[in-house]
């Protein structure tokens, strides 16, 4: 008789199976298991190294993404203290923020950007951190390549010197943006001092109409709660509509959470997540993957878990959104208009409306569809993935970008760019009059040469419409890839549903 193979892994689930007949379970374990917890609470509890007496905890950090703009000073901190990186293999260094999207040639991008990129290369070598260079087929925006490489996994804590790190929360990872000083702490000590957040459930139900995407859901959520509405919370997106979403859509949704003030946006890992991860370079393989999935399957919020706040969004009524102001929360359905002065809640709101309209060169009450644009930007960690490009390409196919409009597509990563080229999307875009660029953050953050001129107005798939975000004096309207592609054709903000394209 063959002995039953014992599971090799040491995870609690496997251990429990290995000793199923064990009759006595200590009471404290029972009570511990009986406490219903949310996904966030499970992730948090799993990483607490120590509770501090000032209301904070020391949290173990599994992974860190280092880009060229937020880390030169972090490495300086390490050098000044003569410290090494504690676990070099838990970091990936990759240039994305300041890179030129015109060419991978070193001649492009200017001496300052080049110096930042070179410094990242030097620091990665000095501290023995895995480096992905420009020109490497794995290069791309940190929040696009982390998931692509399987570096982003459920159940992990992931930090990055970028506020859109919540993107990785789509996998059920506790991921959040930090400053350069905290990047140094993570590198030196593999941990961070954090304060436990309150929990907010955003329950999304209903079926999205044609051309209504995760970006529209994100914008409508942010508009509903306001720029600080989720401040102090860890948001978990739940409900049937979220369960039905692709990983790309979940990433778009989680990505924008910071625009509602919360550093953390989460979706519970499920079969969609596991299927996305399987086979990626850094992902566990074979038995190890089974073992990992057993752990990941325990992470979803318990049914009886209580959230500090719960919000419901119904997709049935949602139509494509556009932002009109200088905060992502200043957004509304495309069929709407800039708020009227008499609709402002108080004098403060009236003053802000006047100031924003002045900056954006809009009139209170102006219908969104009358707003003419000069530029279109399709890309970013919010909407630079293959699904986003497919969505935009369906609108662009066989049409032309309006005469006065300059439109660029910047894939989120080299892998996305190659996939799009394999599908012929690049031809669709270039035939329509778009520029087809190299991957990077580009006009989402406008550190590189992809900047608007003062007064120029852009239909953008990025995440922020702050004053000057896309260049000094530039005006940004946030929207989905389909909506941006529709604006490219008509030269003004346009309800994509009126173009008569079948999705």
């Amino acid at each position, binding site marked *: 008789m063959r002995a039953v193979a014992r599971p090799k892994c040491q995870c609690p689930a496997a251990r429990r199976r290995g000793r199923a007949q064990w009759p006595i379970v200590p009471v404290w374990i029972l009570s511990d298991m009986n406490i219903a917890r949310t996904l966030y609470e499970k992730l948090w509890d799993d990483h607490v190294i120590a509770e501090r007496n000032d209301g904070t905890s020391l949290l173990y950090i599994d992974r860190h993404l280092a880009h060229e703009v937020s880390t030169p000073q972090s490495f300086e901190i390490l050098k000044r203290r003569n410290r090494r990186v504690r676990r070099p293999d838990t970091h990936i260094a990759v240039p994305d923020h300041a890179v030129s999207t015109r060419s991978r040639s070193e001649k492009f991008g200017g001496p300052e950007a080049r110096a930042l990129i070179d410094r990242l290369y030097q620091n990665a070598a000095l501290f023995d951190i895995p480096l992905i260079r420009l020109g490497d087929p794995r290069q791309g925006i940190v929040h696009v390549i982390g998931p692509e490489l399987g570096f982003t996994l459920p159940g992990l804590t992931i930090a990055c010197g970028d506020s859109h790190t919540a993107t990785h929360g789509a996998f059920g990872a506790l991921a959040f943006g930090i400053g350069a000083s905290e990047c140094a702490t993570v590198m030196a000590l593999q941990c961070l001092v954090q304060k436990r957040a309150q929990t907010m459930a955003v329950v999304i139900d209903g079926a999205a109409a044609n051309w209504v995407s995760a970006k529209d859901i994100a914008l409508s959520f942010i508009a509903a709660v306001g720029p600080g509405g989720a401040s102090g919370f860890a948001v978990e997106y739940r409900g049937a509509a979220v369960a039905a979403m692709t990983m790309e859509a979940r990433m778009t949704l989680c990505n924008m959470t910071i625009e509602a003030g919360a*550093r953390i946006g989460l979706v519970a890992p499920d079969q969609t997540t596991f299927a996305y991860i399987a086979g990626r370079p850094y992902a566990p393989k074979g038995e190890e993957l089974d073992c*990992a999935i057993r752990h990941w399957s325990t992470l979803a919020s318990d049914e009886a878990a209580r959230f500090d706040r719960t919000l419901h969004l119904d997709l049935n009524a949602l139509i494509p959104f556009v932002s009109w102001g200088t905060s992502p929360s200043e957004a509304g359905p495309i069929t709407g208009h800039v708020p009227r002065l008499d609709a402002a809640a108080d004098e403060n709101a009236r003053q802000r409306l006047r100031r924003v309209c002045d900056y954006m060169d809009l009139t209170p009450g102006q219908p969104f569809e009358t707003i003419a644009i000069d530029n279109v930007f399709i890309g970013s960690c919010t909407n630079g993935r293959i699904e986003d490009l497919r969505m935009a390409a369906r609108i662009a196919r066989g049409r032309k970008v309006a005469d006065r409009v300059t439109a660029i597509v910047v894939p989120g990563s080299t892998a996305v760019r190659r996939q799009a080229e394999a599908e012929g999307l690049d031809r669709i875009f270039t035939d329509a009059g778009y520029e087809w660029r190299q991957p990077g953050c580009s006009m989402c953050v406008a550190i590189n040469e992809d900047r608007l001129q003062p007064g120029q107005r852009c239909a953008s798939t990025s995440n922020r419409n702050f004053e000057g975000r896309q260049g000094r004096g530039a005006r940004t309207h946030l929207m989905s890839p389909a909506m941006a592609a529709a604006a490219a054709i008509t030269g003004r903000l346009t309800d994509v549903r009126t173009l008569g394209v079948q999705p």
Partner: protein
Amino acid sequence: MTGPMLQITAPAAAMLQDGIDTDVIFPARFLLRMDKAGLGECLFADQRSKDSFPLDRPDRRPVQIIFAGDQFGCGSSREHAVWSLVDYGIRAVIAPGFGEIFANNAARNGLAAVRLCRAQVAMLARESAVGEVTIDLVAKTISTSGGTAIAFDIPEADRLALINGWDEIDVISDTYQHEINAFEARYRQLRPWLFKALERG
């Protein structure tokens, strides 16, 4: 690392609109600068050209305190926003709420991010249009030259960091080295696949 800060007394400026984000505080194009020194010249770079910018009023210099609206420092994680404020000479921002990452960055650089309700911020800003403001981090109070002291709230960890001027890496490593090692050893045993996965990448 910054020096200890127990109390500040200085002129204050009022920038009470909500949502002054880190792109406004520190425009992205200056992120190309690698050196922290001199970042004060980038502070509010695209606002300073406007007439009567609060920080540039000659009668109020040197401003070290800013009264702000809600969600000051929301948006990007760029620590440059804090560095540029500090380099300019700002030691405290008083607002109803802050961007979370900004607030985390502030305490690590000797910038006090102090929370007060909107009405109190507005009142203090009015009262301190002339004269000075005193922020006492030991007593946790704010007072104006003429007015009474108001108690304020600040996360205890941030307050201790400010008054001690400590260095986070040193503090954690001195206090928790053993706990970190123990956690990591336990964790490695519990999730071996997580550690093996990295060897493969």
